């Protein structure tokens, strides 16, 4: 478990240390595509979060929590 966690953390840190190219605005066509968005389908991801929140103990990460509920 510790090895898995260390590997994941190292992988993430490595990605963060990748030198980033100077991508001009007109070179961002692929990045601008809908399927490249962090959240291409807002209803789908909110539904998933909604279900997982009610089945699992974890929540949060990339947004503030918003409203509360009594189911978890």
């Amino acid at each position, binding site marked *: 478990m510790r090895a*898995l966690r260390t590997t994941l953390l190292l992988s993430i840190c490595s990605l963060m240390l990748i030198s980033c*190219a100077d*991508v001009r605005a007109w070179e961002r066509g692929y*990045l601008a595509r809908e399927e490249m968005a962090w959240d291409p389908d807002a209803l789908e991801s909110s539904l998933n979060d909604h279900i*997982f929140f*009610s*089945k699992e103990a974890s929540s*949060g990460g990339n947004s503030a929590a*918003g*409203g509360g509920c009594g189911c978890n």
Partner: protein
Amino acid sequence: MKNSASRSIIALSSTALALPGIALADAPPTQSTISYKLSNYQEDDLSRAEAPFGELERYDIDVHQFQLVSPLGRNMSLHVDANYESLSGASPWFTSLGLDGEPIVNLSGPSGISDRRTELSIGSRYYLQNGSFAANIGYSQENDYQSVYFGLNAEKHYNNDLTTVSAGLSYSSDEIFPTDAALFNRVIDEDKQSTSVFVSVSQIINQVSSFQSAFSLTEQSGFLSDPYKLRDVRPDDKTQIAWSNSYRRFFVAADAALHVNYRYYHDDFGISSHTSDLSWHQNLGRTFQLVPQLRYYSQSAADFFTNVDDFLNPTSEYQSSDYRLSAFGAVSGGFSLIADMGSWKATLTAERYLANDKYSAFDVSQPSTALVKYNRVSLGIDFQF
């Protein structure tokens, strides 16, 4: 809130604060989009070995989601989210030892549970040259639960819009008033509050890939126990942290995008978790897209979790047999098929979720008896005008 049902609001209410893509600097929408999604998910029945007495049938849940995103003047957008959810079935009431000495679960009453939830959230985003501000307010009502909440969010672009920093906060005030409180000696009327903050950094790596790292801190206080369980006593405050990382890469030759996400979570109930998911967004011509996805989740147990309720314990001692506080792992997989016909878009999604203590990446000293398996089917429609 009848019982520990799946009626969470946090995820749905955060829709209006969801981070936009960072590929290009923000701009207000030029068209309005109205979206509707109908979903059904059904939990598998328990086996007689798990629940020798009473009901076996668990929740069957329908969810209706509506969303309107519309331009508001030249520099603003309007976001309206409405959700309606109905559920029926039974959920774990208490646990005990079976005749063979193994833990068994007892589900709630023979007629099961039937409940509805409605929610409305309204928000707006104001766009500047190098960033934006957003705010939303929301209200949710159930037979025995209500929540009022608001959120604020700001983001700013740096480095020729290659880097985006975003931060936000939210607050919710909730009230719990269980049904049949006098009959079952439940609490009459309790409240809880939740405050949450987050910060994220997004970075364009090159012409085809980007990365985002985000950290959130949530503080809950008030009544955090489950009033519908026969014995459930939890601390009255909880601090949660979550660290999320997301990577996107477009493969030009394949005309497809890869999504990789990982989240580490920890709270002072003693629970830690890892969540990772992968999805592959494969374009099929100009109209269709197929998105297979796979997710793995694992959590450790809360310090006070027990898989057999001890009714001899004084009620001042923390104790819960809620399966969501146990150590377990869960694997889920599915696909979405998307048809994009210009102004109209339709999305069909199917998913299977399997939770099992054997899938856990953490030590399991007390396996839970009521872990969930379910199937989900969703159909979504988007219309731009």
